[in-house]
């Protein structure tokens, strides 16, 4: 490809990607190309891809570090003669700290390691949550891994393994967290080191932990096993603060009560009333009136199963598996549950079948039977709307 007369790579098409209002990866790669030949060849190859409307990365690659079966994603250019600096351009995934808290020293350490061993370009963070180190050659993988390990970092998950568990920032910054997401994320990461580094499953398995139903890590849409904080008792109401919001101009009836999905709230101009039995814990009222309302005191989490993004088949959202686990029992409950789920998935899952797809194929009743859980009404999205489920009152009559 001909470069422009100023010696920089020709990037007519890529330049258009810098024009919009959003931050652009093109700008970042151009900045990196000041000191990195890899970034320059990356720009050239990418411009070519836009010209030809064709990707120039080969599919797959089987590279890694000794002792681990994951953490490195092989990338090779299919035009290695033209773009020698990106002939190998492997990605390394590094396990991020729960909640993405770093000291600036830690960030500098990672960047320094990567400037010595790779392109210097990173992606903080990838959609898995991991630190993504972009672009290195096969011979640099082991030295990078060793140096990362000496500085307290480990590789993340890739392939058919437990992926690096991920959580929202939780109690570190958010008063709504109903359990300590960062601690649970760390404990689960430690508990499943073998399954994280040495792929043994039919396909990937993701854990995500969200402290409240706002679900800031979108666990309900992306995790095979989602743990979402919730509470069992009543929403805590501070009447004086509700009155303050009203005095400050918040239209409680219109902005809170009318937008409640189950219309379980009332406002008489002075006092907010909530019928907590009808509350579906959507967080709307708490989000609108954060000083006045907060989750109840009896806190824990709901455990859900089976979400995935659309790769092999269509996207799935999680389904409720356990409606409520007290916060202090979460780790033990998860360990027992996950053991049973993996046993069932190992036995019946086909190659590259996510656990959510397996449940779709065999049916939720067979899956529940397989893992030894009783069906409960909370597993159904809207139990009272479903004509095929009959609830009985305690003395036997239809409800």
């Amino acid at each position: 490809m001909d470069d422009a007369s100023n010696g920089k790579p020709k990037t007519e098409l890529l330049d258009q990607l810098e024009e919009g209002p959003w931050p652009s990866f093109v700008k970042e790669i151009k900045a990196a190309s000041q000191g990195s030949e890899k970034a320059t060849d990356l720009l050239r190859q990418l411009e070519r891809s836009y010209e030809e409307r064709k990707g120039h990365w080969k599919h797959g690659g089987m590279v890694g570090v000794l002792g681990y079966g994951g953490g490195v994603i092989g990338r090779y250019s299919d035009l290695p003669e033209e773009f020698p600096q990106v002939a190998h351009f492997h990605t390394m995934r590094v396990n991020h700290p729960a909640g993405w808290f770093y000291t600036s020293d830690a960030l500098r350490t990672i960047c320094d390691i990567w400037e010595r061993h790779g392109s210097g370009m990173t992606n903080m963070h990838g959609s898995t949550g991991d630190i993504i180190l972009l672009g290195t050659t096969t011979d640099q993988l082991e030295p990078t891994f060793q140096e990362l390990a000496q500085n307290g970092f480990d590789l993340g998950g890739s392939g058919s393994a437990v992926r690096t568990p991920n959580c929202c920032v939780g109690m570190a910054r958010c008063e709504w967290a109903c359990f300590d997401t960062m601690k649970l994320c760390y404990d689960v990461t430690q508990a499943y080191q073998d399954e994280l580094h040495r792929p043994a499953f039919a396909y990937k398995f993701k854990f995500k932990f969200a402290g409240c139903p706002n679900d800031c890590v979108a666990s309900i849409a992306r995790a095979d096993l989602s743990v979402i904080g919730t509470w069992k008792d009543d929403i805590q109401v501070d009447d004086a603060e509700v009155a303050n919001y009203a005095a400050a101009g918040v239209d409680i009836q219109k902005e809170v009560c009318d937008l409640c999905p189950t219309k379980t709230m009332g406002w008489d101009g002075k006092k907010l009333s909530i019928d907590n039995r009808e509350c579906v814990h959507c967080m709307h009222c708490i989000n609108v009136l954060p000083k006045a309302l907060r989750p109840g005191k009896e806190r824990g989490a709901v455990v859900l199963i089976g979400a995935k993004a659309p790769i092999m088949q269509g996207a799935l959202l999680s389904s409720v598996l356990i409606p409520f686990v007290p916060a202090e029992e979460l780790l033990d409950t998860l360990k027992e549950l996950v053991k049973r789920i993996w046993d069932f998935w190992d036995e019946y899952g086909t190659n590259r079948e996510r656990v959510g797809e397996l449940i779709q194929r065999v049916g939720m009743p067979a899956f529940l039977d397989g893992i030894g859980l009783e069906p409960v009404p909370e597993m159904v999205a809207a139990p009272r709307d479903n004509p095929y489920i009959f609830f009985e009152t305690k003395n036997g009559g239809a409800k």
Partner: protein
Amino acid sequence: MPVFECEGRMYEVDEDGFLQEPERWSQDVAKDFAQTEAIADLTDGHWKVINYIRNYYLQFGIAPMVRKLCKETGYKLNEIYQLFPSGPAKGACKLAGLPKPTGCV
């Protein structure tokens, strides 16, 4: 196509070092490739895994799933990593002369 050379013997390999001519495979070939996988000596344990993978591949045309490999050879997964430090797919399949296993990362 890259070439892997071992004591004068030349093998065509792909960019990850997997043998490109499956019909050339023999135990001696496996011994040559062991050097690329940080394996000093091929023990009975190594051969048990290699032969299982090789036979499975000849019968079914693909590499066995990890779970099946463990079940049939009696090795736990971390024991397989002790035998083949880069793992069953990159290490053991390479020595068994299989083409690169496909998978999604």
